[in-house]
Structure formats: structure tokens, C-alpha cells
């Protein structure tokens, strides 16, 4: 089961949890479970979220498969210039 790391406002929205064990095989599943479990996460989803899987940041690809032992980290959606 992937362990999902959180920081800052995401941690606050998840009732202070620094990490969560979430049974999800794709980013889409992961985010759906997160919002279901922590409704305050919806605001961050609306504002834009990215998910890091084993160090690689995925902003858009919700179908990305999360390996069973992956390191997953929730990040704000990044803007660039």
C-alpha cells in the first residue's frame, strides 16, 4: 500500500497527518480517496494539486499508475515562467 507524504496546507487539510497509507493504484483513485476521507482537501484539489511518485512530479496525468512500494508525495500545482 503506497504511503502518501503531505506537508503544509495539505497536512492541515488531512487533520495534521504527515503521511497516510492509501490503497490506490492510480493518481485518480488516490485523490478520490483523499477527498472522501478529508473533505477539506477538495479546496486544494480545485486550486491544483500535483503528485510526486518516486521523485517524479505528475501535474496532469491522473491515470498514472502508482507502484505498490512507491514513495508518493502530495504537492501544490506548480506554475512556471
Amino acid at each position, binding site marked *: 500500500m503506497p504511503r502518501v*507524504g503531505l*506537508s503544509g*496546507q495539505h497536512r492541515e487539510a488531512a487533520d495534521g497527518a504527515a503521511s497516510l497509507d492509501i490503497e490506490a493504484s492510480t493518481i485518480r483513485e488516490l485523490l478520490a480517496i483523499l477527498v472522501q476521507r478529508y473533505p477539506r482537501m477538495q479546496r486544494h484539489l480545485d486550486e491544483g494539486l500535483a503528485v510526486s511518485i*518516486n521523485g*517524479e512530479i505528475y501535474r*496532469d496525468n491522473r491515470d498514472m499508475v502508482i507502484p505498490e512500494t512507491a514513495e508518493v508525495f502530495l504537492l501544490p500545482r*506548480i506554475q*512556471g515562467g
Partner: protein
Amino acid sequence: MAHDTSYTDQDFKIVGSRPPRPDGIDKVTGRARYGADVSAPGQLVGRVLRSPHAHAKIRKIDTSRAQKLKGVKAVITSKDLPDLTEGNRGNYDILENCMAREHALYDGHAVAAVAAVDEQTARKALKLIKVDYKVLPHVTDVDAAMQDDAPVVQPHIQHDGKPSNICNVSQFGHGDVEAGFAQADVIVEKTYKTEQTHQGYIEPHACLASVGPDGQGELWVTTQGHFTVRNLCASLLGMDIAKLKVTSSEIGGGFGGKTHIWTEPLALALSRKANLPVKLVMSREDVFKGSGPTCSTSMDIKIGAKKDGTVTAASATLRYHAGPHPGPWGMLGGMTAWACYDFENVQSIAYDVLVNRPKVAAYRAPSAPMAAFGVESTMDLVAEAIGMDPVDFRIKNAAKEGTRASYGPTYGPIGIGPTLEAVKNHPHMRARLGKNQGRGMACGFWFNFGGQTCTDLNIGVDGSVNLTVGTVDVGGARASMSLIAAEELGIPYDQVKCNVGDTASLGHNDTTEGSRGTFSSGMATIFAARNAIEEMKARAAKTWEIDIEDIEWRDGAAHAMGMQHSNLAPLSLAEIAGASPGTGGPIAGHNEVVADGAGVSFASHICDVEVDPETGATRVIRYTVVQDAGKAIHPDYVEGQFQGGAAQGIGWALNEEYVYGEDGCLQNPSFLDYRIPVCSDLPFIDTEILEIPNPNHPYGIRGVGETSIVPPLAAIGNAVSSAVGVRLDHTPMSPPRVLKAIKEKQAGG
């Protein structure tokens, strides 16, 4: 067709060469068409009336006299842009920034616009518009805006349960910083400030809008993201996305400042009202006051280290101004601040703060240069305190594969260590310095990202290839994309013509930002070419009447494999294309992809300066950029990105600054008083490209456009501080600030 995005370590035949860019001749001969270079029959001139106050309630706008002026065809205010955002606060903020509604929120905020038959009439009409303002208290300084008694810019924003200018607080890090500081032999803590700067693109914002009575529209515009412009403008104006075609012009610089919309909805609204095309071109003053510069900041940086150079803890408190609407800028500073290093205990707390200044937009690796200024200046101070070479100190603490980044994830293969080793061994570091000269170095990080991308490749019957991409060419991308297509197809570079398609020609492409152009359109071009190759193999199979599995593509031709087909001479791309009308029609390759996994980027810079102790004027006398590119598709344009970022960083570090008066109005909205570097201010900027492949791109590409602006503020700060013997902690390090620091030192301050 799904394609594998993994790096394959292939040998290249054309990629990595340096042919001339296809748009080069047009650009140096004046044929290239920029935002203001296109006209339409019967077009009107659009002009915008802007608030002269930093903060005011708009009680009434009387446009009646302007509307009656002969030659005026349309006048608009916020009433002509009704709120169609349906509760989407982000879109409402964009709408409010494009045209003030109940309040003018900064000096230069648009309050009305006119379209007239000529420039003179439009200007005269603006003077006839009467706005009844009630001037309100304002705040333009980020620290002042955080005070409890500061004027509140947006009353709906709350912090700690009451209206506040603090619109966002972000925290990143890991470990226990207090425990880490307790283990330190040396702790250095310092406060820094950076002033607001503008991207300084030479081409002002410009567009030509045309909306007909049938609700269909076209927009020609200088932008980094015409699909984003289309989507936002259509949404704000209540148009169907498919009925607004947006074409991106050549772009005379953007650097993040052309990732948003500013006057484009106004031009469309004017055109809709006048039923005529409207060209709207910003003046330079409009650009300074009414577009999107970067933030000013103030920062507290603290680093603790052992005498052996091990950093035991690091913390940063960052305060970034966002303009009148919330943004992610402080958050990005917090994420990037410590990203170069492998620290056990690290923390950053970042505040986004509203002020009465223009809406902040991205500026090349947005927010990272300011945080790097604080962090890298303090790294030098710690190295000095423990008596360690600053490069060795950084090497000892550099992040590497497996390091947990300060913003959360664990790094894969990264290039900070190699850039530092390259700096340590660079001849620049051993060159002798003269009197009043100093040397500094600094590191920088940027994430890079990819995003939605759609590309078409069409093969003509003569074998020439049209490649259509949807990412705007901001730095030589058409040359790079042509190289990639030629590499895949096995044909000469000159046989490929790369175009930037309009929004009606391709599926959605995200804005060209985040150093994504070459990474993402490069990926889509590879896959589009491979799809076209599959089609050409099918045509060859049909021609030869053999199985497609017996055909391979190499050197620009289909080859039949196996002894049984040894009598079949290869069919070239041109031969297959020439026969295409009789083998199934046009041959094309298409790809749409969400290009993720862009691969982070690091750079280390070296800078030598000479400071005149009598005037405080600083001259950069030598500058070297070392950066990881993943794979340099066209090395000239990679080097150009390295040099461009460094040049802009030099201006930011030494001279550029938004200066506000007591009245909250901008004092220097022109290039006479806002000094960007010109050629004579810059040395030749030397470059060294490192290639540490991105595992998530077939060619190993990482973005290169942004990281180069991250280290210069700190590298120059370290060099100037070394030259004058006193720490500079405030950018720009302009002559008055440097002279003040020298005099304070001489006075024993």
C-alpha cells in the same frame, strides 16, 4: 497509440548539432510578425484608462462625453464585462484584474477602455471619461502589509479569523530544526530584501481582436500560451471555446509575463461592441503598471553547521507580495529555497501577501531567485564562519540521487553535484582578481514541468515535412523540434518546416511555461514522427505486397528485411510520399500526450565583479553558467537560455527596481528610469552544458529555460560582498545601496 516515454540512450545523428534557426532571417530582416504587426480592414485603435490611485473606491464612471466624441466607436467599463465566473474565484480575480469593478486596486489598474478610429481620438476620448474615486488607504510594502493595522486590500481574505493581507501560508521541510540548531557549532541568521522587478520583454503586450455579430471571434496576440488565452477569454466573455480562434504572433520576449491575460478580453469586448476589429497595444508605461511583474520579498534565513561543514539545520521565513490577488509565489519560494541541499533538519515557512501593486505574474523560475539570494548568501556566510571554501561547503551538503528534497519527494538522478564539481574545476575559479574586484558563486534549482501537448506532422508529396506544434517558440524551439523530427524520420534538417499552430488547428496545448516547450513538444514530436513512420511502413508493405513486420525504418527509408526480400531496394520517405495518393492518401503522424516527469534542473554560477568604491557602481567582468540540460537538442539555444537568464539576473541584482512613492504610485514606469542591462553592461557569459539524462524522456531532455535566472542574484551578491568587504543583503545592489554599505563599514557600522 501509446508510446514509452523512458530514456533510451540512443545514438544521435542530427540532434546536438547547431543549424541556423528557421525563423532567424525573418527576425533579423524585420519580416517576422509580432503582436502589433498585423492589421485588419477597418480596424480601430483601442486604449485603456488606468487608475491614478493606488487604492480607491470607484463611485461612478461617466463615459457619456467620450461616447459622443466623433470617431469613438465603443467605450467599455466593467459593466460590459459581467461576472460570468459562476463562483470561480480564480477566474473572478482575473476578470477584476483585467478591468476594475468596485475598487481600483493599484496605480495603473484598468478602469475603462475605448475603441476609436485613430490613436489621437482614442486618447482624447480617455480624457473625456470622468471617474469619481474615493481614495482609500494603501499599502505597497510587503512587511507593512502584514501588520495588523495595514489597509486591507481584499476584505474577503482572512487570516487568523479576521480580514488580512496574508492570503496564503505554506510550510515545507522535515526533521527537527530546533534540535538541529542545538547541534550546530556555528549559526548564521540574516534578513534579506529583494525589490520588485519586471520581466522586461522588449515587445509590449499587443493584440488584434475581431468579434462578429454571430458571436465568432479571432484574436492575434503575443503570448506564451494562446490556448490558455482562448480558454480564459472565452470563459470571461461567455463565448464558446471553439468559436474563438487565437493565433500566437512571434513573441518578443515573455519570460513568464505573457502567461496570463491582460488587455485581451478588453480588446475582444470593444470589438464585440463596435462590430469592428480592434488593435490594442500597450505602451511601455502600460506594461510596467498594468501587466505582471514579479514579487518584492523579505526573508529571514538561518543556517547552523558543524565545523566540519555539515549543516545541522536550516530554516527560512519568506514573505512574498502577490499584488492585489492571491498567488502561489511565496509557496514556490518555500519549495525551492533549500532544494539544492541534503539537510537532515530543514524548514521553510512562506507567506503570500496582498499589496496595492500590479498582479504578480511568473518570471522565469518564479520565486526561486529571491529565495536563492537569501539562502546562497547565508551559505557563504556560514562557509566563511567555519573557514571552509564555499564551493567545498556546498559540495559537502549537496543533494544527490536518493536525497529527500526539502519540499517532500526523493530525488532521482540529479545534477547539482556535477555542476558544483564543474565549478570547482573551472578555470574561472583560478583566475586572478584585481583591485576592488570580488568573486562569488551560487547554486539554483527549478522543478520544470510538462503538461498537455498536441502535435501534428504532415508529409508532403515531395517528401518535405510540416510539423505543427502548439507550444509557442520563445527561444529557438522550432529549430529544436525540426531537429527532433529529422532525427526520427532520418531526413535532413532542412526538409522539416516547423510551425506554431493556432487554436483551431490542434488540440489543447498548455502554455509555454515551466521550461516545458522542448521537453513536452519534443516528446509529442517524437511520437508523431514514429506514428508517421508506422504509416509509411504500411505504405511500403502495400507497395511491396509483403508483411509490415518484414519492414524496418532506418536512414530515412523503409527497408525490407530478410533474404526473401533482398531484391527490394529501400523506399525513401520522398518515394513513399510521392506515391501516397495511390497508396491510401495523405501521410501524417499525430500525437497528444500529457507529458509528465519533466526532471528537475540545477545550475551553479560563477561571477566576478569590480566595484568602484567612490560611486558604488558595480561592473560584472566575468560570468560563467554551468547547468544540467539533460540533453541539449540544439546547443546554441540551450546556451542562449543560460546566457539570457544570467543577463536578466544581472539586471535584477544590480539595477532593476519598482520604485513607489508615498502616494503608492509607481515612480519609474519607463526604461529611462527602470534600468535593464544593455550589451555594454554585460561581459561575454560563458556556458558549460552538462547532460545528465532525464529518465522520463526518450531523449533525456530536461527543461533549460528557467534555472539560469536562479543563481545570479546570490552569485553577484557574494561577489560584490567579497569586493567591498561588507555583506550586501538587499537587491538591487545599486550604486546608492553599495555606497551606503561601504560608508557604514568605514564608519564602523
